[in-house]
Every structure is written in C-alpha cells, then in structure tokens.
C-alpha cells in the first residue's frame, strides 16, 4: 500500500518536471475519478453544441449530406423579419419575467412570510400548484378563459362593467401580454418558494436592530431584507431570464405563435424551422444566436448582481 501511495504522489511530480507538468501518467487517478462526468458532459453538452455550430453553417433538410453555406444562414437571419419579430417577442417575455414576475414573487413571499398568517401552508400550495400542472391543461383552461366570444373573462367583464369583448388571444398586441400573464400565473408560485426560503433565513436580529434604529417597513425592506436575500434574488433573476428567453410552451399551446407571428418566440422559431420546414441549418443558426444572447446577458447579469462573489 505504501509503495503504491508513493508512486501515486511522487511519479507525477517527476513527470511534471520533465514534461512541463502536462503528463497525466501516474497521476491519472484524479482524472479517472472526474472522468465520468466530463465524458458525459462532453458527449451530451460539448459535442451537441459543436454539432449545432457546425450545422449552422450548412443547409440540410434532414436527409443526405449537409451542404456547406458558410455564414449565409446568419446573414439570412439578420434579414428575416420573422426572426426579428421572434427576438422582440422573446424580449417582451423576458422583460415580463424579470420586471414583473420576479418582484411579484418577492411580494407574495413577503406576504407568506408575514407573522401570524393563517392558512400559510394552504397559500403556499395554492401558489405552487400552477407550476406542477401540465402546460397542456393550462393551455386548455386559459383558452376557455380568454376566448373572445365565449370566454369566462370577457363574460365576467361584460357582466360586471359592460366592457365589450376583448380578443385576448386574437389581437396581435394583447396576445403577447396574455401569454405574459399565463407565464406570470405559472411561475410566480414557483419563484415565491425560493424567496420564501431566503426570507426565512434572514437573521431576526437584523430586523430588531433596524427597528431600534427607527427604520420603517420600506427602509427595513431596502436595507435589511433585500441585501440579505441578494444571492437568491440574483439567482432567481438570472434563471427567470434564461427560462423566459427560451419560452416555448405557452405561446405554442395557446396561440401556436399567432395571430400571424405576433406571439412567436425564438424557441418556437427554431422548432418551426427545424421540425415544420426541414431547415435544420437555419434552425441551428437561430439556436446559436439565442445561445449567444442568453449567454452574454446571463454573464452580464451575473456581474451586475454579483453572483458568486462575497458580499
């Protein structure tokens, strides 16, 4: 055992000296231990990403050899008003997610964390349930609620306020916000759980100190609560952004991207190009663009919000 141990620790040092520290022989054990992860990571992450990038420089219908077209797909994307529209729609969805859904989740979490709240668990379940309901069911329910002529919402608005029927899913502008509302309804409860966990971990002493210093509710929130939950808030913001940027279920199930292309998201654009139009190279190029945007914005958010850095 001892000799084996010596070999494992000494030989790599010698080899490193002779070969600029790059040889793995003898010191392979750590690499072997971490290899399963990296093999799978390379196989299922790196190779597909490289394949997508390679595919994005080709024209391929799914059969036969792809034809190399260089950057033509990217140039076509730049000219494609449909892709521009999809980017704009995804931008709206991400704004709704980051600017409305996240703060609302925090607000709900604050409410649920309030002292003396009755039926706290019941509220938690009620808020969380939309996240675990199948998107198909959600689409069906909201189709019933939002239908222009026979929907529950219009019927209620008409009965209560005499408001004429609104085409929630058929009007190009309103439909975007209807999708945004469904996104909000589905994800607020889920994000609330993160905030609630964070709020429950804020030391009570900080609130007591703030109270002794005469801080009001708003000031306490700004100076105690927010800084204390900043890591979780940052995580929620970034993950909400990423999921909204890749939004597919809601527009696909509720409107199929319509009316026209007014609710088409980038993820739907990619799906449509690949699996309805057999334009795999074009779809891959759109996927690479989406990846680049999501990656860059996420990195920017990471830096702005200080994720992974000490307070």
């Amino acid at each position: 055992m001892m000799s084996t141990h010596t070999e494992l620790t000494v030989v790599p040092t010698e080899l490193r000296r002779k070969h600029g520290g790059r040889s793995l022989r003898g010191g392979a054990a750590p690499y072997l231990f971490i290899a399963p992860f990296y093999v799978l990571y390379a196989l299922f992450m790196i190779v597909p990403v490289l394949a997508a990038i390679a595919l994005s420089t080709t024209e391929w219908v799914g059969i036969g050899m792809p034809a190399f077209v260089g950057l033509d797909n990217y140039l076509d994307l730049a000219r494609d008003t449909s892709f521009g529209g999809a980017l704009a729609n995804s931008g709206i969805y991400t704004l709704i997610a980051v600017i409305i859904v996240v703060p609302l989740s925090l607000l709900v979490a604050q409410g649920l964390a309030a002292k003396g709240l009755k039926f706290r668990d019941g509220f938690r379940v009620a808020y969380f349930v939309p996240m675990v309901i199948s998107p198909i069911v959600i689409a069906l329910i909201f189709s019933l609620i939002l239908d222009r002529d026979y929907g529950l919402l219009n019927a209620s608005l008409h009965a209560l306020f005499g408001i004429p029927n609104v085409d929630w899913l058929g009007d190009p502008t309103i439909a975007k916000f209807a999708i945004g509302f469904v996104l909000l309804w589905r994800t607020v409860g889920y994000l609330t759980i993160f905030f609630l966990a964070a709020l429950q971990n804020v030391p009570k002493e900080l609130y007591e100190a703030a109270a002794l210093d005469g801080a009001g509710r708003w000031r306490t929130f700004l100076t105690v609560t927010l800084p204390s939950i900043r890591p979780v808030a940052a995580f929620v913001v970034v993950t909400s952004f990423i999921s909204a940027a890749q939004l597919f279920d809601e527009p696909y199930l509720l409107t199929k991207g319509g009316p026209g292309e007014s609710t088409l998201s980038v993820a739907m654009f990619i799906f449509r190009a690949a699996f309805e139009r057999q334009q795999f190279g074009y779809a891959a190029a759109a996927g690479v663009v989406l990846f680049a945007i999501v990656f860059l914005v996420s990195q920017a958010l990471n830096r702005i919000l200080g994720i992974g850095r000490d307070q």
Partner: protein
Amino acid sequence: MTPPSPSISRRGLFRLAAGAGGLALLAGLTGCTPPSVPPIGSGEIDLSFWTHDDAYVRFFTDAVPRAEAASAFRYALGVTKAGAADIVTKLIAQAVAGTGTPDVVGLEIGAFTRTLRGTIASELLTDLTDIVAPFGDDLMSARTAPFSKDGRLYALDSDTPMTVYYHRGDEFERLGLPDTFGTWDDFLATGAKLADSDGISLGAIATSDPGGTVQTFHVHLLQRGGGLFDAAGEPTLETPEAEDTLRMLVTGVQSGALATVSDMYGPGMQSGLKSGKIIGVNMPSWYSTYGIQPSAPEQEGLWRISPLPRFAGGGGRTGAGGGTGFAVLRDKPASEAGVQLITAAYLDPEQQIKRYRDMGYLPTLRSVYDSPELAALEDGFFGGQRLFEVYRDIVDEAPEIHQSENQSIMDTVLSGHLLRAYRGQATPAEALTDAARDFRGQARG
C-alpha cells in the same frame, strides 16, 4: 528519465476528444449506411406500421386477410402510434440513423409537405405512380395531387375530404331559413340579418393559430377555384379567386354572419355550438367526426349537410381540406409487402366502402360513389339524412390541392395578413399582396 510510453498529454486528450466529437458529428449528420438486406418476396413478414390514429390501426388490421389473399405474404403488423407532426420527425430521424424506419407510414397531409423539401420524398418513399396507373381516372386526381411531387405519387390518400355546409336543421326550420343558399352573397345577407337580430352566426372561421386560420381560408379558396400553390408548388395568392374568397370572408366576419373562434376544435367553437350561437359551419367531411360530434354530442339528430353556396364569380359547390396518405418506405426488405398491403386496403372498392362505414372517410375511387350501398346509408347524427346523396352530387366538383414544401411558411405569413383583412386594417387585395411579398422573403429563394 524517459517517461514510460504510452503517455497521454492533456493536449493529446483534447485532440482525442475533439476527433471523437468530429467523428460523432459527421456520423450524426450523414447517418450510417444500413446493411443491404435482400427484399422479401413472400412468406411471413413483420411489417412496421406507423400512424397517428387508432382508427387506421383497426382498419389496416382488418385489411390484413384481404392483403394476404391477394399476395404471397403472411402479415404481422407492428404498430407504432405518434402525433401526426411527430411521425415525419421520427421518420427522418430514423432514416438518418439508418435503422428503425417503418415499412408503412401514415402521413397527415400537412405533415407530408415536409417530405417535399429537397429529396426526402424520393429518397425515403416508394414511388406508387405505376401501382395506381391501372386505375386511371377512377382514382381521383383531386386526391393524388396532394401526395405527389414532380408527377410521382408517394402516398395513397385515405379520404376525399370535400367541404360541405353543416347546419342545425332544427334551428334552420325555426328561423325559416332555406336548406341551401344560392350564392355566398345570399348566405352573407341572411347571416348579417340573423347576427344583428338574434346574435346567431351561420358559420365560423378560425383566427388564432396560423394553421387553422389559413385552413378556413384555404377550403373556401379551393371552392372558388383557386389554391395556395399551383401544380409546380409556386404560390398563387395574388389572383382574382383569392381576392374574391377573402372579400367574402371579410364581409362575413365584419357583419357577424361568420363568428371568429380561436380554432375549429377548441373550447370557443364548442361553446358556440353548444350554446346555439353557431348554427352552421363550412368544413370538410371529416369535421363531423372530429369537430361537431365531440363538441356537441347532445345535438345528435339535429344536424344536416348541404352543398356549399356558390361564389358568384365561379368555382364549384365544394372545397377540400385535410387527408392522410399512406406511404411505403422504399428499398426495405418489406417494401413489396407494404405496397401489397396498402393497395389491398385502399384501392379496392369494397374496402373503400368499409373505410367510409368504419371511419367516415369518403372514397378516393370515383366509381364507388355510385355504390347503392353507400347511397342507402342513413346517418343518425344527421337525423337519418342520406349523406351520400350530397357527396355524390358534388364529388365531380372536388378541387385538387397542390402542396408545397413551403406550406408552413405560407401558414405563418398568410395568417397574419388574413387577420389584418378581417379587422379592416387592409383590403383583401392589399393583404394578399403583402402576404405574397412576405412569403417570398421567408421562402429563401
């Protein structure tokens, strides 16, 4: 001291990984060449059969004895069921993998358009042109055109989905409406009055999902004598027929004669039918099974069908929409057995009658429309009406549908402009011109 060989440097490891990745990528993109297996000409055969509909499984299973009697094969069907759109995706994925493709596959008409791109159809599917040649004009060209490319037929259609005017017989009687309208102008005039006085619509069109929006326009356009594409697959939007059709629909929508619903199968349509606010609809022959009966089963016996009103400018009394073609994968050991199965199941008059009785799909052989058996059939959902009296009357006016690899592009660009026209934001001519321009932009040459 020389390090014992072989050693793997970190750079070498990366090179190795990159090489492996490159090989995987190349293999993934080009697919593996399947081992050559000789075709099977007789005997027992396991036939892989893909479809999106249980009814086809039952029908083809029932057809096996007939296929066995007409051939030297003994069939065992291995059925795989998947969504209509997913079938083409899976088919292509398996073809790329070089294994696991079906022997016989049912391709919904919209999904079939994906095989028209590039050489997918010709590389994957058996050319059935010579198989159907003996049937001549009896096999209606209206139903071979949608599944053809460059004059070659790649699938046998399951249906001749002619459009008819479905309507509530009881409501028509109560309101004193005629069973048939002479022209769409008559229809719209009556519909506008009815919408104004009773809040009832004589028809409905879809306005949310792009495919549904275009389908409702398309079925009317086909009736008018137009089409979205010509036989060469080129778009034909800027035509008098298209403008005439859109003008009619715009008038109907804006007057309330035609209700707008999210889609023709969704909750909005169901509510409209159940509440009696929608008492008629122009849809293909299968819509009774997939739209009206599931939405309003309690209205059994109250519905009727009639030929469509005519367009004053021309066209016939029926349009068309939908269909599913059954294709056989080419160059497979069971390809011959697959061809024998679909021809025995689909190109036999008795089977076409059985298909109508079992599934409600209209014959694709013209001579079958003269069958006394079909003429005598009464349909309980339609109050005992003999539907074939209507179908036989209009079958010779059934239009051809020409498809294109760019159907999906047409759906998305046209739907938006149709809605602009319905909302009065563009004239029919402007909407169609803009749609044609956008189509050319997205079709990428």
